[in-house]
């Protein structure tokens, strides 16, 4: 008995919606307020903002709550909302050196120029499940002190020297700097297809589903799909960047807010026959919010794509199979009725059977 065959499709939908809404919103437990998502589940909010391609923590919290924690649904709510909004301005480009650093590590050197800030990270914490986490019992600093350390807004944190420039000064970096300044590819306005400019690749990855990028990285950097890469990270940074637009009347630059990004530079060892084998190259990753595994995967895949030079299908995989909404939507569309197709398939099965010389014509039709 298919739901399509039932009359009253609208009734069925509304019943389903009522069920979802009621059970979600009227659950016995306490309602979760939006600031609780932002305050206590910040990494989830950051990840969803990155995949939605939209910086708006409160709306993101709303989406996660409405979607009952399903990350694909949350991203869908946000992107669909974005489709109803007109684009009123473009921000001015901002250099990442303006980043107010909250965290910075440089695996390639023990003493890179500028500070290494472990910052707010669990990298070196013991992964021991702690029943007391979430209660105040494990907080060892006064909240004001912790906030100040985390924020740490001393001026030395901007314009921190980059490892990339250190390598360049040592003449260990190939020079891929452009002299022109093309408009970045806008993936929200034009679908990216191989061969695509680097900005298309980077922005597609910035908005990709985190797990998809991680999987692409693992398959392609270490195998089974790809090559063995020597991977060293140059910079891993998390910090705040200003958002600036041009004032519509005065034409001056106006700061209208700030957002956080994670930025990674990955050092690639060039060892190919046609490559500059006495030098390194750099891959770059940048995404909204605090999402280190995504930015690291981005940086590695960026340089892997460049070195691949369109020889394999790596670029196509990155551009066309890493979007969470596209992949999940298409997968789940299999739940839609397909009985017309299935009827046609059954008919062909019988036609094939009837076409075989050993089958008696007139047998089961």
């Amino acid at each position, binding site marked *: 008995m298919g739901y399509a065959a*039932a009359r009253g499709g609208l009734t069925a939908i509304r019943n389903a919606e009522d069920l979802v809404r009621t059970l979600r919103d009227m659950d016995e437990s306490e309602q979760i307020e939006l600031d609780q998502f932002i305050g206590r589940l910040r990494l989830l909010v950051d990840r969803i903002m990155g995949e939605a391609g939209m910086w708006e923590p409160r709306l993101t919290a709303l989406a996660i709550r409405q979607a009952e924690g399903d990350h694909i649904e949350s991203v869908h709510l946000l992107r669909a909302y974005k489709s109803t909004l007109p684009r009123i301005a473009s921000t001015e480009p901002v250099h990442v050196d303006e980043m107010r650093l909250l965290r910075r590590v440089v695996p390639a050197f023990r003493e890179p120029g500028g500070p290494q800030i472990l910052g707010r990270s669990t990298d070196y914490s013991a992964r021991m499940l702690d029943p007391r986490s979430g209660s105040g019992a494990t907080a060892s600093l006064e909240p004001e002190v912790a906030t100040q350390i985390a924020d740490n807004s001393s001026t030395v944190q901007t314009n921190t020297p980059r490892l990339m420039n250190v390598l360049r000064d040592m003449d260990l970096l190939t020079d891929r700097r452009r002299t022109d300044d093309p408009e970045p590819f806008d993936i929200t306005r034009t679908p990216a297809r191989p061969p695509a400019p680097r900005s298309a690749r980077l922005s597609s990855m910035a908005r990709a589903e985190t797990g998809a990028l991680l999987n692409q990285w693992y398959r392609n950097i270490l195998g089974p799909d790809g090559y063995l890469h020597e991977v060293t990270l140059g910079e891993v940074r998390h910090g705040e960047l200003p958002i600036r637009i041009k004032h519509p009347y005065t034409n001056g630059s106006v700061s209208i807010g700030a957002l956080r990004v994670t930025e990674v530079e990955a050092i690639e060892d060039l060892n190919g026959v046609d490559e500059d084998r006495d030098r390194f190259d750099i891959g770059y990753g940048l995404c909204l919010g605090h999402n280190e595994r995504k930015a690291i995967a981005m940086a590695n895949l960026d340089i892997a794509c460049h070195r691949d030079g369109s020889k394999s299908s790596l670029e196509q995989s990155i551009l066309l199979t890493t979007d969470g909404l596209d992949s999940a939507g298409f997968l789940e569309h299999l739940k839609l009725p397909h009985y017309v197709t299935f009827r046609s398939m059954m008919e062909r099965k019988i036609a094939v059977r009837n076409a075989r010389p050993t089958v008696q014509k007139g047998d089961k039709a």
Partner: protein
Amino acid sequence: MTMSAVYNGSNLDSIVGEDPGIPFALLDEESKREIRRALLHAVCVPGYQVPFGSREMPVARGWGSGGLQITLAIVGKTDIVKVIDQGDDEGVNAVNLRRLVVTSTGIEESSEVVESTIIQSRHRIPEDEMINSHTLVLQVPVPEPLRGVERDMRELARMHAEADYSRMWVSLYEDKVRNGVITQTTGYPCLVNGRYVVATTPIPRWDIPRLHDSQFLTLFGAGREKRVYAIPPYTLVEPLTFEDVPFEVEQANGAQCRLCNSSESFLVESPGTNGDAGTWTCSDTAWCRARRTK
């Protein structure tokens, strides 16, 4: 008579209904214009897949977001929309899509082809005759007809640009030789205007002849893959086959709809239980109902 009152109380009301923040037909003006420009190119180069900046819709990718974008881009205040899935107006996804269109535009809806101006459909062409004032919008899961013979997108683009469909022909030939028949089920590949091979969407072979030399315009929307294409009225649409292998629609061997007795519409089977024989019904529920009430 407007049916939008039917949707009162659904969660869309508070967001879409009276909210001045949500534009007419959901999409902002810029998005609509982009889709429209793509459609205008599509009708001038029948069968060519025009890339467009597909927007995320309230329905998921793969669930009709492309068809929906086309409908929302073309719809006007006086249009009347019919939406079907597998031929059924009451399929839940069809209902969901239709209410999105209706609640965001205030236009009327209908289950009757003769009353409608825009017909958005997944996997069927309505049995009723459609005329020049009708626009058929088909939902496309996979717009690339050559996907089975080639995966690399650059090569696919070249094949279409150069009208190099040789590998498609080889694949059909091998199919016929291996299986005795061409086993393509729905979405039969067709040559449009003697130039582009298109994915006809998973409509049954039964519906393929309706695309050829039609009175109506057919627009195809692939939201996930971000392309639109079109078959204008009075356009040559030829299913790919060989001179000595006639194109075959689905055979039903005399089956009839158990509700209206039709054997001249596309029928779908309900399998029998407990050893009973299966029964057949028209896939096009509105057509079937009209036949019964005549």
